[in-house]
């Protein structure tokens, strides 16, 4: 079985992100694999462990953006491809989906492509669905449980109302939610292997395509308005006295 996990490199979720001097800055926070994409790699590795085959990681980013890829390789992925090209800067989601779909086709004979639910930088959460649409494959998004049998896949999707159980034939795109289960830590051997791994870079011409035209633009990025609050500390002689004062304060805000 040929399995792909699509991943992205992002600033750590604990980073303080600000817009300054005309650019987005995350200080000295590390760049890491998008936390959601760890589930994508985990699901890919589990599918391989059950059914055999290979796990290829695909990431789109700058030519030095290899931290996320190294992490996925250290977790146990067999190989990785970095898609990098100056013409890919500032692409919108539908363009990225077209590039990823082309790369998945170039890898060839892929049975399953896993994605995290969204990237914690752009927060769009549409790449799995859009890539599936370009490929013409079913998109089984927000899966909490995944099982593959023969040529078919069954997932339990996490939806507002609970769970929806859906099956489809392969090839398919699957995106994962946290309920899938904790992703494994990289092993010591894995980290050594990842450090030595050669990661090929594919440009757009390697993919045989022009940069897809972006239709979305971002005229302005802003820091959110600062929250001008002075915290009023509620004190009292007893928990009951504190509670009673707090209740009146909250009711005076007219939010209940």
């Amino acid at each position, binding site marked *: 079985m040929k399995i792909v996990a699509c991943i992205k490199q992002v600033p750590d979720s604990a980073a303080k992100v600000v817009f300054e001097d005309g650019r987005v800055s995350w200080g000295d926070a590390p760049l890491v694999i998008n936390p959601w994409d760890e589930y994508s790699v985990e699901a890919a590795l589990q599918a391989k462990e059950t059914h055999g085959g290979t796990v290829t990681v695909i990431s789109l980013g700058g030519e030095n953006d290899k931290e996320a890829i190294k992490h996925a390789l250290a977790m146990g992925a067999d190989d990785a491809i970095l898609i990098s090209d100056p013409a890919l800067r500032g692409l919108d989601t539908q363009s990225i989906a077209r590039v990823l779909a082309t790369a998945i086709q170039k890898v060839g004979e892929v049975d399953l492509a896993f994605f995290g639910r969204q990237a914690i930088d752009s927060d769009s959460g549409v790449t799995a669905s859009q890539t599936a649409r370009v490929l013409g494959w*079913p998109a089984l998004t927000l899966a909490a449980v995944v099982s593959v049998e023969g040529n078919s896949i069954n997932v339990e999707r996490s939806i507002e109302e609970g769970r929806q*159980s*859906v099956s*489809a034939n392969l090839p398919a795109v699957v995106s994962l939610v946290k309920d899938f289960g904790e992703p494994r830590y990289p092993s010591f051997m894995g980290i050594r292997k990842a450090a030595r791994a050669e990661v090929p870079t594919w440009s757009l011409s390697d993919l045989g395509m022009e940069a897809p035209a972006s*239709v979305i633009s*971002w005229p302005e990025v802003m820091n959110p308005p600062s929250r001008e609050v002075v*915290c009023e500390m509620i004190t009292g002689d007893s928990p009951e006295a504190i509670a009673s004062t707090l209740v009146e*304060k909250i009711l005076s805000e007219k939010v209940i």
Partner: protein
Amino acid sequence: MKTWVYIDHLKGQVLPSSWEALGVAKSFGSASALIFGENVQELANAAFEFGADEVLLVDDPKLGDYRAEPYATCLSNLAKNESPEAIFLPTTTRGREIAAMAAIDLKTGVMVDVIAIDLQGDRLVVTRPIYAGKLLTKETCSTTPAIVTLRGRAFPKPTPQPGKTGSVKKSSLSLDPAEIKSEVKGYSKGEGGVSLIDAGIIVSGGRGVSNNPNLTPPAELDEKQAEIWRAQQGFELVVNLASVLGAAVGASRAAVDAGYIPYAHQVGQTGKVVSPDLYIANGISGAIQHMAGMRTSKVIVAINKDPDAPIFKIARYGVVGDLFQILPALTNAFKERLGK
């Protein structure tokens, strides 16, 4: 501007943010509500009452079980014929993926989880949070239709106008069944209760809820089990207050990762981003990743034993103290005051 709104429902149960989206669409001119499904004609009445001028109905047994592919095809085919200028959807599980797929079909852009929207010339310019709200970005789309999903509770729900009606335009679904690539095997219900995304009030618990020194866990539990047992007792206090207030129950990542409460309750950058009128944080110190998910709440109340906890920096009211005493007292005080 010719605008469409996708009414998101599962088997006829509409998610309320659909009506908020309808209100937004109306503010730009006439709005048509899109209702897809099987035996869903009744939903048209609600759509008219919430302001729709027209309903585009596709009622077909093939749409009885929701799947993104046929629903997106349905939307794309209608849009190819009718050329709306903007299509609004609520940012729900289904809204997001239908929007994503239709954007591919229609060779246009999708702008997701929008919290503000402006018309500049004949173009929509939207504002949406990125980095879980640590930054905001403006976005605009150079092609039509602009496909926009709207964050729940970011826009007001229109006041219903009882008895208002309009015309229902029925279309048939031109779809080869072979194009439907997946099959629904069944559903299981969630825990129920108030959904975090739609909640006006959220009561949350963090790691601090497991620290009640006055509890003695059953002797047969090992250390980890005892910690979770303590935490569950602590969360019961959170749940009690939530039920008095008709609130949803939230949690920090630390509490979820420690196994105290299921992930569905997690608020933060890797959980749900929420914006209720009232957020009561109990035993939550205020990690950046948690505050990114709730900092736009209207009124934040924090109860924590550490006076230096960062959560107090964004809170309107704070209590430094023992939440195991204060929380039950607060629940009782609300019960009395609200006459429950």
